[in-house]
């Protein structure tokens, strides 16, 4: 099932594989999407639903599955769900569901802005006797604090079991409700639910694939969780052909999440020190971050964290100074993209680096974002072409309309040309966590330089400027371990001789022993005593020994291809793959064999060559140590080793800020009221009530039409990498708006003519593409129209069009601050903007 993704259009080559499954192996492809897209065209079933109703649709499948005969009689489901998920775990009796509180969970603060999650916690047995009496190491600190084991009821009968809570929570998510709220015929919904159920089990697995169609919502995280819950209930996780696949958008968007240039995260998914929490000292930091997770593989957190800080400051990082922790910045609030621009518009941000991104087109409420740029003192842009962002002071719509004047904009702008991928060496991590090396083929032209060159040489200059400082706050930059000078052999063939060594950086990411600089083959080698460095522990193994870069391996095969690149962690391609075997460690079926226990060898084996995402010697059925941490605590039947109970979470006792389970909320801007609960939208969604960012009311008569933004195959995101290319510009030359003939007739809009789309944030014009691929929905008896706009265009380049994000608004998911770009409201009319015909 493809949902929240237009796979054939946005990931055409990945779509090769599901299509192969369809043509060669008879797989059924289903596409659930408001529009009939090129993906729908190739799928067996297309199910149109109103944008933003995914949780209801998926929740109804959950309800259908757990009340079905097959699910309740086939022993496979019970074995998988009782043992590999937290269905049997008992939840705090204080917990109140949305059914009890009409759309909110227990724990909502009095101002309604945040949840306290104490009532969502597990019921636990008594705390074990600690394995250590005196804490000498960080690990000892964790051993002192191991909690009691969660209580369970394997019969799933107890009303406090996660399973019973879920059953109750989703019992009103019925096919009738789907028809009423999603606008999708009951018959089509049932077809999808039945197909998923019938194609899951011992012999068969089903996969759910999504992309930003799910993430860009005020309930984005919860939509994905619903899918994960469904897959866990269907026994589709950790098994070949199963899972929930995220299709990500950029070449190494996965890499830049793993090795985060994201405000809240350090490389390897260590949380950024956060002044809002108790992270004052390094010990505080470790206790705050690691204690709740110590009974998972995160029990090794101290080793990862020390190795990270050691990598930052090298010799200057010592046990005595907590490895330089005190000099590391702490976050104090949400510093993500949207707040960044809010604060930029307020003048808080003076200097801005924009590297290969184009917020002038791609940013939500792009007009707001462009105007914020004008408040900067200086801005550095690195890109291939003169992006809209880099030219905001020159010819943006605001300059053309006279709203801003070039002469008044004091921003000093630097455009530094960037090297193309083919012109530099480095690694990308693809959407399947696969790290692949691309080689340098030639020098970039003129002054163009690699991004690494820029950052490295900026760092060198800054270190020179701060070399003589003795101030505390310059300690970090002064003591930064910053040596990626190339070996002569690395630059011998090239004009640019000061290109830093990407290999040395990757080696540091991988990790090595500080003393003799020997690369570490696995993260199991990391130490908490400062003897190892590792920039991002999850990547350890990519350089398994000096000179051996596993991202460079290029021997594929017909299945897992373990010798092509390197899949973090530890070359494991299918995560949690211990779940591909039953309780006894035997494959669920011959057809779905992946990882299983070899009793003779006393080890788990994977003939496909996939990395085993489990302790290889931990026998199935073996009990965990109640007072241990990490693998010691986990039993032989706990495949989900990154969860502190080793189970897949149907119910999230913590970690998600807007509820332990997903509930259907309407999009922040919606033409209809929530028909499921009294609570209209996500109560804790992030909003910015500021000038230039007006919101539409629910069922606002001025903006009755649902709008969705998306991409097409022929262009890439904000178009910087596609609209300048004649080959791509001519394939999709101009911004267009997809609109149903029904709505077009109502508004007098003709195909290929100009039409105007309007929100309280702005109005834009687009060519109308009147097509029956768009359709009106009947929601609770009322007709709701939907229009769609691909957002690739801007006022520069060989293919021009208005900026679609001038329409969108700053509103975001509370967990990750991803904006709601997939659904908001608007109005449309015939003719060009400004009233011209």
């Amino acid at each position, binding site marked *: 099932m493809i949902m929240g993704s237009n796979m054939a259009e946005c990931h*055409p080559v990945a779509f090769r594989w599901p299509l192969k499954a369809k043509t060669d192996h008879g797989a059924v492809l289903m596409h659930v999407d408001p529009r009939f897209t090129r993906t729908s065209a190739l799928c067996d079933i297309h199910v149109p639903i109103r944008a933003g109703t995914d949780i209801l649709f998926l929740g109804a499948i959950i309800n259908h599955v757990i009340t079905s005969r097959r699910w309740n009689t086939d022993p496979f489901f019970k074995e998988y769900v009782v043992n590999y998920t937290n269905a049997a775990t008992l939840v705090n009796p204080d917990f109140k569901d949305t059914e009890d509180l009409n759309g909110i969970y227990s724990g909502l603060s009095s101002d309604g802005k945040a949840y306290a999650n104490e009532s969502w916690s597990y019921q636990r047995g008594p705390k074990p006797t600690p394995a250590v009496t005196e804490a000498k190491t960080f690990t000892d600190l964790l051993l002192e604090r191991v909690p009691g084991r969660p209580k369970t009821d394997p019969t799933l009968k107890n009303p406090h079991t996660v399973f019973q809570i879920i059953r109750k929570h989703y019992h009103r998510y019925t096919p009738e409700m789907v028809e009423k709220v999603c606008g999708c015929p009951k018959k089509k919904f049932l077809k999808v639910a039945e197909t998923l159920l019938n194609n899951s089990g011992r012999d068969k697995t089903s996969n759910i694939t999504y992309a930003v169609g799910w993430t860009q919502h005020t309930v984005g995280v919860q939509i994905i969780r619903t899918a994960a819950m469904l897959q866990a209930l269907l026994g589709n996780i950790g098994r070949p052909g199963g899972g929930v696949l995220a299709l990500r958008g950029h070449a190494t968007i996965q890499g830049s999440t793993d090795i985060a240039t994201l405000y809240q995260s350090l490389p390897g998914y260590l949380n950024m020190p956060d002044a809002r929490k108790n992270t004052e000292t390094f010990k505080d930091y470790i206790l705050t971050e690691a204690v709740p997770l110590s009974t998972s593989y995160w029990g090794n957190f101290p080793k990862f964290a020390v190795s990270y800080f050691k990598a930052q400051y090298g010799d200057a990082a010592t046990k005595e100074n907590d490895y330089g922790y005190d000099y590391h910045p702490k976050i104090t609030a949400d510093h993500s993209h949207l707040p960044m621009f809010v604060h930029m518009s307020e003048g808080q941000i003076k200097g801005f680096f924009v590297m290969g991104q184009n917020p002038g087109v791609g940013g939500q409420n792009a007009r707001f974002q462009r105007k914020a740029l004008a408040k900067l003192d200086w801005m550095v842009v690195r890109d291939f072409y003169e992006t809209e962002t880099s030219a905001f002071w020159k010819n943006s719509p605001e300059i053309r309309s006279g709203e801003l004047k070039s002469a008044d904009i004091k921003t000093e702008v630097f455009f530094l040309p960037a090297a193309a991928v083919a012109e530099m060496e480095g690694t990308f991590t693809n959407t399947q966590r696969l790290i692949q090396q691309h080689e340098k083929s030639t020098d970039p032209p003129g002054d163009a330089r690699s991004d690494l060159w820029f950052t490295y040489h900026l760092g060198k200059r800054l270190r020179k400027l701060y070399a003589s400082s003795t101030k505390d706050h310059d300690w970090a930059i002064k003591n930064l371990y910053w040596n990626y000078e190339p070996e002569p052999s690395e630059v011998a063939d090239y004009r640019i001789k000061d290109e830093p060594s990407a290999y040395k950086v990757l080696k540091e990411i991988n990790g090595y022993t500080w003393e003799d600089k020997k690369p570490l083959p696995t993260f199991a080698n990391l130490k908490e005593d400062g003897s190892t460095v590792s920039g991002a522990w999850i990547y350890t193994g990519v350089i398994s020994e000096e000179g051996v870069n596993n991202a460079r391996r290029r021997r594929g095969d017909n299945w897992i291809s373990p010798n092509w690149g390197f899949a973090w962690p530890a070359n494991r391609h299918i995560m949690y793959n211990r779940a591909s075997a039953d309780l006894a460690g035997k494959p669920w079926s011959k057809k779905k064999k992946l990882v299983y226990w070899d009793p003779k060898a006393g080890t788990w084996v994977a003939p496909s060559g996939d990395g085993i995402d489990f302790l290889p010697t931990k026998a199935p059925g073996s009990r965990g140590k109640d007072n241990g941490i990490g693998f010691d605590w986990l039993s032989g039947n706990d495949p989900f080793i990154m969860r502190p109970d080793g189970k897949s979470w149907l119910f999230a006792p913590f970690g998600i800020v807007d509820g332990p389970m997903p509930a259907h909320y309407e999009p922040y801007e919606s033409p209809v009221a929530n028909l499921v609960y009294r609570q209209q939208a996500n109560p804790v969604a992030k909003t910015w009530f500021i000038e230039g960012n007006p919101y539409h009311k629910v069922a606002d008569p001025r903006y009755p039409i649902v709008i969705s933004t998306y991409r097409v*195959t022929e262009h890439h995101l904000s178009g910087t990498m596609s609209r300048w290319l*004649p080959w791509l*510009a001519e*394939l999709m*030359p101009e911004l267009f708006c997809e609109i149903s003939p029904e709505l077009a007739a109502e508004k007098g809009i003709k195909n290929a003519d100009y039409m105007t789309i309007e929100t309280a944030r702005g109005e834009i014009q687009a060519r109308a593409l009147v097509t*029956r691929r768009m359709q009106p929905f009947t929601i609770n008896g009322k007709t709701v129209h939907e229009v769609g706009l691909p957002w690739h265009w801007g006022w520069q380049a060989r293919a021009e069009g208005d900026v679609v994000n001038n329409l969108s608004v700053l509103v975001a998911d509370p967990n990750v601050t991803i904006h709601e770009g997939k659904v908001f409201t608007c109005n449309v009319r015939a003719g060009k903007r400004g009233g011209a015909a």
Partner: protein
Amino acid sequence: MAKGMFVDTSICTGCKACQVACKEWNSLPGDPAHFRRVPDRPYRVAFNFTGDSYDNTVKLSATDWRHVRFIEQFNESRSEARWLFSSDSCKHCNDAGCLNACPVKAIVRTDMGNVFVQQDVCIGCKYCIPACPYGVISFSEKTGTVHKCTLCNDRIHNGLGTACAKACPTGSISFGEVADLRKKADARLARLKGLGFEKANIYGYNEAGGLNVFYLFMDRPSVYGQPEAPVVPQQRLMSSTAVTVASAVVVAAAAMISFRERGEKKKEEVKL
């Protein structure tokens, strides 16, 4: 043996990778007709939006040797909903109208069966253009000659497949020996028929003496803009010539009669 391509439109996603891959390998620019000058821009800007589904390049041209068609088949209630795609190019006919029409032997068939325009021979008379029943071959003002798909002549003579087939993400375009491709096509057609796609058909086994680039269509060929019964124009050459000669005889006879009054009788007709 003849090389060719099989285009299985049932698995085409309309992504247009073939169009770009073709341009990349053959160094074809963006079609100049798709771009125009815009005030304050030092470069030309594309303006070829058509509103015809996702098809903006409309036809094959001297710079577009491939073209993906988009056919939307939806009824009002959307109970019938189908979006068909098909990637079109030169079909490398076994009886090629363009080759037959070329007065200078610029258009030749190579040992691999592909119909190839020799750019250094072509004089740009453009007669091959209307001679193609598929509207494939096109004239370039820039080179003064005609251009079309070469079946990647350079690649196939170096043991490679065509650029479009190589790029095609779903394998909708496959390159190989025509005989092998036909086997593959027959199998695929049988499978689709078995699944209930009654209208599925293979286009190109018999048309124009057999097409080395042939198609599996999900609907009638005309739905995809292909002639249902293409005629290679030169098949009519003899009849057309005969009628014209006959007319010449008629005119000559008429002249004889007109001028006969005081003329001597001569058997002029016989000589003609």
